[in-house]
């Protein structure tokens, strides 16, 4: 018994050290300070606190889970121990920071960081706060592990909702302002920053109650599935509601948020394309930005009077740009036909960089504008109306996305779609089954390139200019991340991924700086914990779970 319990404590200490290390890392890369002004609950609790305490809580929870006993005391103690150890690590950082000037090397080790880590308490005393807070957080983690798993949602979901409402306070308040008296009814939920204290409590209680009721009902009786006709009606109604919301979204959101929405839309469009290449056909394309660039540049070259080639209108240039992008897709596809996953990734990465380097070079300056880019690109017009505000462009993007989604959806279950999935699973077997892998792969590249090209043309028209530096490898990484995190091969996943990865950083200014750090961490965590993504495709989930 004693050796067993000693391993429990060892595990708890280890968890605590890991949690402490995570918090120290978050502090030293500057995330804690950056988020320390972003109130979740006004005047009480900031996102910085969440970053500080969440790792410790999680480690406390994990320590309690691993303790593997039913003794409540040991569970709580091991969670608390993990939290305490993590808190001590944090306190050690504060202490070291007082003795040594870490800031000479680590730019984020500012006095403000130490203030935040000490929870605003003056320092000699403040250093004790972190272990204490860690202790509480770890113990709370232990408590969560006590709750039966089906009721864990009752605690977690309301907290997540409060977190989301608090973080996106500006978005929601802005929406409420546009709603007149209806908005006024809910205005008290929010304070000047974050949620108001009463609002948070109400949301916690009401949310908790609703979740509890849902879980309880689910527990009560296994209801038979609804009859197919009823299901159909529900489906149609929800689609109609969705379309109405989509149509009025720019009115609801206002100009500033519409621009964010436009960005998200452009990435949804690209994501739908890359979803075909990576998700369905299993070809890891890291140079996807090249087709986006080609779409934008063809648009620029054909319409801009600055270079003086053709001076076409937007609509006349779109088909040419799409054909150009699709041809580029095939051209890239040809040499890489025989390559396997990892080689393919590097070659496509190289292809994307070649396009950027060539476009920005002095060599092609007379034709493509060099590093100064192309200005005065035509805007889409419908009769006398010029689509030039963010709200108007939204409809163009929406139509593009719906069209792309429709094509992708129809392709997915068609012959070619099934051929893509067969190639993804095993190329040799697919070939043996009579699938022409050459045309199948080229088709995937061409379709992916087509969607990215369309996105590029809208992007060019939106900014009325293109510059080579807009097309660096990070765009490819963005699209790849949103496809993978949303769930490879799943179309709703692309939308969810784009909203989470493109929308959130634009809404939270502090977050923008840490965007790629978080994407990287998300990609790794996702692959380790949930390789099928947030909103997985049914078939894909089965495959990945088999292993």
């Amino acid at each position, binding site marked *: 018994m004693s050796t067993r319990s000693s391993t429990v404590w060892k595990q708890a200490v280890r968890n605590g050290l890991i949690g402490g290390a995570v918090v120290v*890392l978050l502090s*030293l*890369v*500057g*995330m804690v300070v950056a988020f320390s002004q972003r109130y979740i609950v006004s005047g009480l609790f900031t996102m910085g606190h969440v970053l500080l305490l969440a790792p410790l809580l999680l480690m406390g929870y994990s320590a309690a889970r691993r303790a593997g006993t039913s003794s409540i005391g040991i569970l709580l103690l091991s969670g608390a121990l993990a939290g305490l150890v993590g808190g001590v690590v944090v306190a050690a950082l504060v202490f070291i920071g007082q003795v040594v000037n870490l800031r*000479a*090397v*680590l*730019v*984020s080790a500012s006095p403000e960081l130490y203030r935040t880590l000490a929870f605003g308490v003056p320092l000699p005393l403040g250093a004790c706060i972190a272990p204490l807070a860690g202790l509480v957080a770890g113990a709370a983690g232990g408590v969560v592990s006590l709750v039966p798993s089906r009721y864990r949602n009752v605690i977690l979901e309301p907290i997540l909702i409060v977190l989301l409402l608090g973080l996106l306070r500006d978005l929601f308040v802005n929406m409420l302002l546009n709603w007149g008296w209806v908005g006024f009814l809910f205005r008290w939920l929010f304070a000047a920053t974050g949620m108001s204290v009463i609002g948070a409590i109400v949301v916690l209680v009401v949310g908790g109650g609703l979740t509890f009721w849902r879980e309880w009902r689910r527990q009560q009786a296994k209801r038979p599935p609804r009859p197919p006709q009823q299901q159909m009606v529900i489906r149609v109604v929800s689609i109609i509601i969705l379309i109405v919301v989509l149509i009025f979204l720019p009115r609801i959101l206002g100009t500033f948020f519409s621009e964010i929405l436009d960005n998200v839309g452009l990435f949804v469009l690209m994501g739908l394309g890359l979803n075909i290449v990576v998700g369905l056909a*299993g070809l*890891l394309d890291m140079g996807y930005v090249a087709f986006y660039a080609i779409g934008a540049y063809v648009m620029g070259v054909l319409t801009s009077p600055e270079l003086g080639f053709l001076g076409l209108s937007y609509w006349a240039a779109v088909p040419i740009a799409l054909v150009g992008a699709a041809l580029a897709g095939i051209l890239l596809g*040809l*040499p*890489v*036909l*025989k*390559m*396997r*996953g*990892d*080689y393919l*990734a*590097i*070659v496509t*990465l*190289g*292809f994307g*960089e*070649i396009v950027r*380097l*060539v476009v*920005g*070079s*002095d*060599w092609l300056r007379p034709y493509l504008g060099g590093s100064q880019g192309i200005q005065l690109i035509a805007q889409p017009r419908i009769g006398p109306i010029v689509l030039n505000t963010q709200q108007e462009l939204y409809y163009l993007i929406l139509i593009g996305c719906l069209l792309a989604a429709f094509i992708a959806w129809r392709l997915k279950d068609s012959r070619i779609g099934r051929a893509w999935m067969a190639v993804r699973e095993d190329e040799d077997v697919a070939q043996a089954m009579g699938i022409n892998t*050459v045309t199948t792969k080229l088709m995937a590249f061409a379709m992916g390139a087509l969607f990215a090209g369309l996105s590029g043309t809208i992007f060019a028209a939106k900014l009325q200019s293109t510059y080579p530096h807009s097309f660096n*490898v990070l765009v490819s*990484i963005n699209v*790849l*991340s949103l496809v*993978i995190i949303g769930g490879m091969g799943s179309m709703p996943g692309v939308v969810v991924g784009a909203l989470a990865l493109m929308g959130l950083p634009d809404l939270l200014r502090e977050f923008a*700086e*840490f*965007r*790629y*750090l978080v*994407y*990287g*961490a*998300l*990609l*790794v965590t*996702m*692959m*380790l914990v949930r*390789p099928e993504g947030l909103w997985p495709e049914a078939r894909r989930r089965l*495959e*990945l779970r088999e*292993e």
Partner: protein
Amino acid sequence: MLRKWLQRITATDVVVWGIGLVILVAVVWGSLITLGLSPASPYAFPGKYTWEQWADLIIRGLALGGIYALIALGYTLVYGILRMINFAHSEVFMSGPFTAAFIAIALASSGFLDRYPLPSLLLITLVSAVVSMTIAILLERIAYRPLRNAPRLVPLITAIGASYFLQYTFRGLYGSGVTAYPTIAALQGAWTVGPLQIGKTQVVIIISALLMMLLLYYLTQRTKMGKAMRAVSEDKEVAALMGVDVDRVIVATFAIGGASAGVAGILYALMFPVVNFYMGFYPGIKAFTAAVLGGIGNVPGAWLGAMILGLLESLGPNLFLDGLGIPAPYQLKDAIAFIILVFILIFRPTGILGERITQAKV
């Protein structure tokens, strides 16, 4: 024989070979013009540049090649054993010199660097190697080990994620600006050999890269650990049955690759004396190209490929891009490496020295 060969050719082969031929002709034609050997050339032999200028470029190319070789080793060793491309290796390369820059600056401001250049340089290199090695080992432990039996795409995506995570973590830790390495007085200037001026820095880089390469070759070919590494790369299960601790061997592989990337980072910083969080990208991808060019999984191959790539990158812009009349050809020097990569993978995916990898191993 010929008929059989003709039957096997497909339309895609023709297109690909056609593109290859066009590029080859362009390269030869451009070189002939620059060298003054073509009737269309406005110059007389030896062309637009003097012999001294060419020699300078060659030495620069060899130094670059040496640096790429040390980085390429990390890619090659890991690929040999795990059959995966460690995408995050470029960040392993960046982490060392970026961290060591602060030691170097401290040493320089205290005057120690100028008084004792050799011990300081060794200290900086050691710090860089240790940091890179630590990052490589952590990377293996946290990101790659749990996924060793996952489908192919999964560790690849993890590696991409880890790469960006590391890049932006170091940006957060040390700032997004450029940190300048202090110049070392002892390495300034050049030695005169006959009519040539050879930069001291270049000589130091070439010699240290060569020594490192020999050391690493000895490590992988002559020591017991090296033998175990080759055994694991041949067949993991059988090696485990023979009593090889596979986990330890893999950690050792990452450690060796990381340390050599750290050393390469310092040599790189001697050549281009600024470091930032983004510095790993191009050297990383070029070193990977070098590894593939020489035959991935093959240590001497990595060295050979890196030398060829270094020379092509250094000579290429002046040799053929200039001859083709492209203005500001140095802007496209990075594109050369990518084009080479694409073409090796098309025409000889096994590289120059690589043995044919059987389907079963892949």
